[in-house]
């Protein structure tokens, strides 16, 4: 049952770029490891090598003492090593059972043995605590349930080593608790868990040891019990992070409200929401996944139908029907879904940056020089790190993509900007840059709305935080009232 993994001087090159340098460490069976590192530290690449998605360029991977070179992820699965992807690999139109057995179908002669697969799926679902019929189509599940199906799929493959990449990013606290219970049960069964997460409190809670990587190199392996969260963060970044957040500068006492929303109702998502943002103010929005924060703002911009609501921008009432109108009136929105809605990853940095403000570069034809100038300016202003100004957005790291996306929604010079999960999937260093940037925007007299699932971020950054639960705005807390306990209590409704 147990499985011993040994990375021996593993090196990986993508073309001329070395992303892993001589990584060597061991994973003992039946333990829970937290794998820590900033974006680009090489965690994913290393785990892809372990799970058979990529071969190492040099060095070797030893499983139970013998060197292995997996030809494919199937090969690794045969050894009991399963990687649960952060972005799910589920066939949306197939049922849960069909997904669980995809590529490993049980047969009876020429035909598929559906009954047996359904029964096995039911067991696996019970194990992960998902109450759903195995015949349910995956499309009908919510994100958290899909996550559980992925885990059930891994379990049905008799995993001996399970790699989980940000598994709780989409889970509610209750679902997270259930996942943690499952992890300890698996651990008791001798399964090794590699747990990748940006949430250090979770790492602190459930892992036995942490492995830290930085810039493609192994930094350290240490028992979790001996490390504080602060120390973990310092190890990841390689420097002190005592100053994550900029000093909070209060908006001017006579600052006028820029955005005023009353009675906003987005059917199915938000009911009778009202709030206002003043010039120079950072207003946070807290809530669980599915609380309707994103959808409320999409309704505000006209991306979803809204049935009621009065929107006032700078004292003028507006009937916004599209993001285009909103941008024209000085309100822009950055989606939480960077690859799906925020950035054209296949287009160049320049085309991405100027998309919302092309009119400024029409003289009367598009002027590439003026666009390039805007890009150079943005790269300098927003601290976007890139080797090549002509590259595609996909070539940037997550943090730099996010900075580019923020620069893009600021191109039309909005008075109010709504940033939805501005630091999702971003490393600690880039997070700090983004916090200071947000502070700077407020300092310029803009109204900034930050929707975030990271409570520490809301507490450290915002002047006030509105908490939503099930589509209803529960309360708005001032900076003095902000604490994790208070926010969670309002978000979960146990206040």
């Amino acid at each position: 049952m147990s499985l011993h993994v040994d990375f021996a001087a593993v090196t990986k090159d993508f073309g001329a770029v070395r992303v892993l340098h001589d990584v060597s460490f061991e994973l003992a069976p039946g333990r829970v490891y937290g794998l820590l590192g900033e974006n680009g530290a090489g965690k994913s690449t290393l785990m892809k090598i372990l799970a058979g998605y990529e071969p190492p360029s040099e060095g070797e991977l030893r499983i139970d003492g013998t060197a292995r070179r997996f030809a494919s992820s199937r090969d690794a699965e045969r050894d009991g090593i399963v990687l649960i992807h952060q972005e799910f690999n589920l066939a949306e139109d197939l049922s849960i059972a069909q997904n669980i057995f995809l590529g490993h179908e049980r047969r009876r002669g020429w035909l598929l043995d559906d009954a047996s697969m359904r029964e096995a799926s039911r067991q696996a679902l019970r194990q992960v605590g998902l109450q759903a019929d195995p015949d349910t189509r995956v499309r009908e599940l919510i994100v958290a349930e899909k996550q559980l199906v992925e885990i059930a799929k891994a379990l049905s493959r008799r995993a001996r080593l399970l790699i989980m990449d940000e598994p709780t990013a989409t889970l509610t606290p209750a679902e997270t608790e259930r996942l943690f219970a499952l992890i300890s049960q698996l651990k008791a069964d001798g399964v090794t868990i590699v747990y990748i997460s940006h949430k250090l409190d979770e790492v602190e809670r459930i892992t036995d040891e942490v492995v830290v990587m930085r810039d493609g190199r192994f930094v350290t392996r240490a028992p979790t019990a001996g490390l504080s969260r602060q120390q973990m963060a310092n190890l990841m970044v390689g420097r002190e992070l005592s100053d994550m957040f900029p000093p909070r500068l209060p908006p001017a006492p006579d600052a006028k409200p820029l955005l005023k929303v009353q009675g906003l109702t987005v059917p199915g998502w938000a009911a009778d929401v009202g709030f206002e943002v003043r010039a120079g103010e950072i207003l946070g929005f807290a809530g669980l996944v599915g609380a309707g924060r994103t959808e409320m703002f999409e309704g505000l911009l006209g991306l979803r139908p809204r049935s009621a609501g009065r929107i006032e921008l700078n004292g003028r009432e507006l009937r916004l029907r599209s993001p285009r109108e909103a941008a024209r009136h000085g309100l822009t929105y950055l989606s939480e879904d960077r690859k799906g809605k925020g950035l054209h990853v296949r287009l160049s940095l320049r085309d991405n940056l100027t998309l919302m403000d092309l009119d400024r570069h029409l003289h009367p034809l598009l002027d590439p020089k003026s666009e390039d100038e805007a890009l150079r300016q943005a790269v300098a202003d927003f601290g976007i790190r890139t080797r090549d100004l002509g590259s595609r957005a996909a070539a940037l790291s997550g943090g730099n993509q996010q900075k580019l996306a923020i620069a893009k929604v600021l191109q039309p010079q909005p008075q109010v900007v709504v940033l939805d999960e501005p630091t999702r999937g971003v490393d600690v260093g880039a997070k700090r840059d983004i916090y200071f940037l947000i502070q700077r925007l407020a300092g310029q007299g803009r109204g900034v709305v930050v929707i975030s699932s990271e409570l520490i971020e809301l507490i450290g950054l915002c002047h006030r935080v509105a908490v939503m639960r099930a589509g209803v705005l529960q309360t708005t807390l001032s900076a003095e009232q902000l604490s994790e306990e208070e926010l969670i209590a309002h978000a979960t409704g146990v206040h």
Partner: protein
Amino acid sequence: MPPESTRAPRPAGTPADPPGGSAPAWGGPALGPGASSTWRVKLQAAGPWLGLVLLCIAGTLLNGDFATWDNAMNVLTRTAFIGIIAVGMCFVIISGGIDLSVGSMAALLAGSMILLMNGIAAQVGSPLLTVAIGIVFALVLGAVFGLVHGLLVTKGRIEPFIVTLGTLGIFRAYLTYLANGGAITLDGKLSDVYSPVYYGSLLGVPFPIWVFAAVAAVGALILNRTGYGRYVQAIGSNEQVARYAAVNVDRIKVLTYMLLGVCVGIATVLYVPRLGSASPTTGLLWELEAIAAVIVGGTALKGGEGRITGTVVGAVLLSVISNILNLTSIISVYLNAAVQGVVIIIVAFLQRGRR
């Protein structure tokens, strides 16, 4: 939890994405660092040109008549119809759409235009004015057809493939009905006035080639140097991102179909004086030739990126193939479509790594 919005299906994830959120900055081998990726892009842009040059060298070696001015003008004139339509098609495909109806549309435009001109010739009096009215009518009707396509695709939320598959049948059936199964022929007097539009030439270059060149030049300008062109590329690359970035997606998409409709109108206006008639076989399979030209020219069928110059070269390349087969006897002329098919598949094969 309330259901997902039905406004637009959200893609399940970009296929090229690495599984981890904490991907390395350089994504993987497919998105190599700056220098080599631009080198790749340049090579791919040069691909159609390279193919055309090789074909021309082969043609010259095989038959001395190939590399003559007359033959070149002949090939380019024949390319003009498909080439002009392909320029419009390029916009539609880059925006992520498709139009299967262009051949049928050309036939119906030709038929309607001839009927109109024959009908009003007596009242209008001047044949020149009659032809001018006919030309304007064909262009406007093309734009109207494009508008209908665009509205069905955007407001009606029907797949463009389905919409234009439907109109493909409708347009051609209507032309067949108007022609009563036979041909609609332009009056002789009008034909005399109109024929220079196809047969005339300026500075030794036939008129259709000038029009083709102008359409291509304007198309390239629109695609690369206007806000509209940028939005077309942004929508094809990722429609959701464009919508969130304050692009009026529906309007831009409708405009691409209208632009294509006008291009079909222009091609029809050049085509009608050539034979002076329209029949149920007019424009047959033009849609496939136009789409093939766009694809051979390096535009991805799934949208997002493409080039007008590539499209023009693609259209010329395909007609050079048939020209060489006509001039030489190595491969039967009957296998023309087969050779073109092989070329299309080779091009697709060479571009497959570009996802």
